[in-house]
């Protein structure tokens, strides 16, 4: 997909002014995070599991060549095919070739962020193959002509009313006559619309949460059952995965599985964890006749030899965005590419270039919640800070940002003046903050406070606190 991350500032501002989005985000901000906290509290071993998961993943990444080769050999032994693709172009061409060889007309898809990364849907459409998204959230964004705004909840930016309007408009041609108001009716209608698509599909495409080296197994974690209907009904099953999804054994996968759903949605376990190994066996009554795994690099091997290697530990649970105050205010579309939120701010500059994505690492208050909840303990604020340094070195910032920093450093080198000016500013802000301690309208910063409240300083300056120690 074409990134629009360079336009982040304008898109974020637009998001802040969209009523529907703000209504959806108000619900989002408390939903997943509260459930995650409850799920973590219910499992006494949760923190210890995180430590173990980090170790397992670091070990895997250190030996990624070995584990991927073992995985690929096992897939081939079980009758599947592995396609090694360096670029998105290679990956989508491979998918197309497999579809053409199978004379495919329609393809069902279960949610895959790699599918978004390689812009698979428009490519298949251009080549006369109809891709049908089957995850409800993905189905909604596909009908709306949009793209996902969250990696596990693609339509989180939409309200129920918007979905009602959308279904009413788009399901008319399929015989729907009524604008449905309730969630259960909407889900039922989508189920009915998609059922025949599942049955008619020639090829099913899923993503992968894990590639198990021990057995050559791919695993997906879902709740709706669409990922299963996508892979057991059509003749051909294609799995899209990037290299870092490898995991040594089923036991190692189990450790991370215990963290995944709890971190993502606060569920104890997702409804369906499905392990797929090769095509159907000769005596099986159902299942796909062909099994293809597309292993995509698309920049992952470059991340390995950078100071951002830990970003490859990501298991795509979405916890960082669920807990990010910036994501929670502007929504995922502002980030302008596949991965929004803190992990997006770290991955996107790698995958689409710093010039395109240099705003994203600045979209953080460094409050640290993302790192605190990341099951893989990825130091997201630290990694964003490194991008900010690179952005500064590459002189990509807006001139006024550089000028402000230059002004600040001019004062900082004149301590007496700095203390006097900062003391004055602090006193003024405290007065403005009044009893509530929040400033609702900042002189010279009205556009800043239009969508935020500024906390007034309290407890003296850093210098004065430091002196007292």
């Amino acid at each position: 997909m074409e990134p629009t991350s360079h336009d982040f500032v304008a898109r974020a501002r637009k998001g802040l002014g969209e009523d529907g989005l703000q209504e959806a985000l108000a619900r989002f901000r408390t939903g997943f995070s509260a459930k995650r906290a409850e799920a973590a509290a219910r499992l006494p071993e949760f923190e210890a599991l995180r430590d173990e998961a980090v170790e397992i993943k670091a070990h895997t990444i250190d030996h990624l060549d070995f584990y991927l080769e073992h995985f690929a050999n096992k897939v081939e032994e079980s009758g599947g095919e592995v396609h090694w693709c360096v670029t998105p172009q290679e990956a989508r061409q491979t998918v197309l070739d497999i579809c053409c060889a199978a004379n495919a007309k329609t393809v069902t898809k279960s949610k895959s962020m790699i599918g978004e990364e390689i812009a698979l849907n428009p490519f298949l459409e251009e080549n006369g193959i109809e891709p049908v998204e089957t995850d409800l959230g993905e189905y909604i964004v596909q009908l709306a002509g949009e793209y996902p705004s969250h990696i596990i909840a693609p339509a989180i930016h939409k309200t129920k009313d918007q979905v009602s309007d959308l279904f009413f408009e788009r399901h008319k041609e399929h015989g729907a006559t009524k604008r449905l108001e309730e969630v259960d009716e909407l889900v039922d209608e989508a189920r009915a619309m998609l059922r025949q698509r599942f049955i008619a599909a020639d090829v099913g495409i899923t993503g992968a949460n894990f590639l198990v080296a021990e057995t050559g197994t791919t695993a997906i974690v879902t709740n709706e059952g669409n990922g299963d209907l996508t892979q057991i009904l059509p003749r051909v099953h294609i799995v899209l995965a990037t290299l870092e999804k490898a995991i040594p054994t089923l036991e190692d996968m189990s450790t991370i599985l215990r963290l995944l759903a709890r971190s993502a949605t606060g569920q104890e376990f997702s409804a369906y964890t499905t392990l797929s190994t090769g095509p159907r066996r000769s005596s099986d009554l159902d299942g796909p006749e062909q099994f293809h795994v597309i292993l995509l690099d698309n920049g992952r091997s470059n991340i390995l030899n950078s100071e951002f290697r830990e970003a490859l530990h990501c298991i795509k649970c979405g916890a960082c965005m669920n807990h990010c105050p910036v994501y929670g205010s502007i929504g995922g579309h502002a980030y302008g590419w596949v991965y929004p939120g803190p992990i997006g701010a770290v991955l996107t500059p790698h995958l689409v270039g710093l010039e395109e994505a240099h705003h994203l690492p600045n979209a953080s208050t460094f409050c640290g919640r993302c790192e605190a909840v990341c099951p893989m303990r990825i130091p997201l604020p630290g990694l964003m800070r490194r991008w900010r340094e690179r952005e500064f070195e590459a002189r990509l910032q807006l001139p006024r940002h550089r000028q402000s920093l230059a002004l600040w450093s001019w004062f900082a080198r004149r301590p007496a003046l700095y203390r006097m000016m900062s003391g004055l500013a602090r006193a003024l802000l405290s007065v403005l903050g009044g009893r509530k301690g929040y400033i609702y309208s900042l002189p010279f910063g009205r556009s800043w406070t239009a969508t935020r409240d500024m906390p007034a300083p309290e407890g003296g300056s850093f210098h004065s606190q430091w002196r007292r120690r």
Partner: protein
Amino acid sequence: MNTGDGRARIMGALRQGLGRGELSAERKVELKARLDSPKTNLVPARGNKSQDARITLFVEMAKAVQASVTRVPGVTDVPGAVTDYLAENNLPSDIVMAPDENLDAYPWAERPLLNIRRDKASDADQVSVTTAEMGFSETGTLMLTSGATRPSTLNFLPENHIVILRAGQITGGYEEGWRHLRERGDGDFMPRTVNLITGPSRTGDIEQTIQLGAHGPRRLHIIIVED
């Protein structure tokens, strides 16, 4: 596609990224040994209890994710438990059942009103009956595997899925399942599909309101047969 070339290019890029060449033969042997005898990592203490307590926990966890559970004293009670469930939920007595030999242990003929087809599922089927390979008390999860007599479509196409599980098949954590699969098969022990199923199908994609029956079964009913 130039698959062989892609593999070589990616391996080269990975090794460059890792700052080393191919692993030494010794290191490969060590890593292979790690794969050949997988180590059990930390398993939550939750599932580590007496068999009775495990079953209780399994039932509690399964119900917490909106599965329904019935416990019956013996094999002869199973067909009755199925007909009762169908009656309670106003479901037809036409059922599609896995050709699984383990299901032959139950006296279906005693319930002549049940119209049983032994096959994979088709779109018209409303109720399926299968066994499970195991139940994990940790999260109320069932493990089902595909095979010549166990088609996976039964687990997903019909709106109602009834699973018959022996009490002795209920264990603690998922690791017991992997051990069981390794012991059951030899060499390449993985069946085409292993389904870990925890409650019926659901979605929260509209305003995070949980709705059951997104694409898979709306109802999951588990019948536990005491050994």
